[in-house]
């Protein structure tokens, strides 16, 4: 069991109703962690629409979860043309 700190931004923050939380998880990678949180909180985003960051750097979804990770799921950004 790992303890991780999740930060939510923008649309995900509104869907979760808070900006951050500490979570205990058995998820092996960030893919599994997001699916676990999505099942719990009913996030509307499929994983394909998001990116994931650990300790302020983008990482791939199959990166193993480590104890103490600071994790952020990044919704689609503002963009523009």
């Amino acid at each position, binding site marked *: 069991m790992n303890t991780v700190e999740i930060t939510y931004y*923008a649309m995900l923050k509104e869907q979760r109703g808070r900006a951050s939380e500490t979570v205990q998880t058995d998820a092996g990678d960030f893919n599994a962690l997001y699916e676990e949180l999505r099942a719990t909180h009913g996030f509307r985003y499929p994983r394909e629409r998001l990116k994931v960051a650990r300790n302020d750097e983008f990482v791939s979804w199959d990166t193993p979860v480590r104890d103490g990770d600071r994790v952020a799921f990044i919704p*689609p950004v*503002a963009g523009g043309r």
Partner: protein
Amino acid sequence: MFALSDQPITEHPLLRDYTHDEAGALAVFEGRVRVKNQGRSVTQLEYEGAEALAQNEFVRIEKEALDRFDIVEVRCVHRVGLLKIGDVAVWIGVLAGHRGPAFDACRYIIDELKKRLPIWKKEYYTDGDSGWINAP
């Protein structure tokens, strides 16, 4: 150099004393708040950013620009918080020896920044509605 700021960009310290003896050109791009978006009238905008992640990702974009183009220095300031029509939302300034690379790098940086920086925009409309841009 990159900064997120909740104060007017035009007064940000990064815009001042921006010179270099080797630089004969400064290309600047400003993104401003527009009244119409996709046919709807906007009253104000709110930007939110993931600061440390944005800072780290900008460093990568800056390095890419310095590798690709013959430029001297890059500075960028992006707003967070509430903005009104006409306010500057993002400012990019590229110093180079000559104007060609300065323009090219400036274009590269704004395009990459829009795709990659973790910054979100919420629009507030005249009809009282609001929404995050790119939300499904």
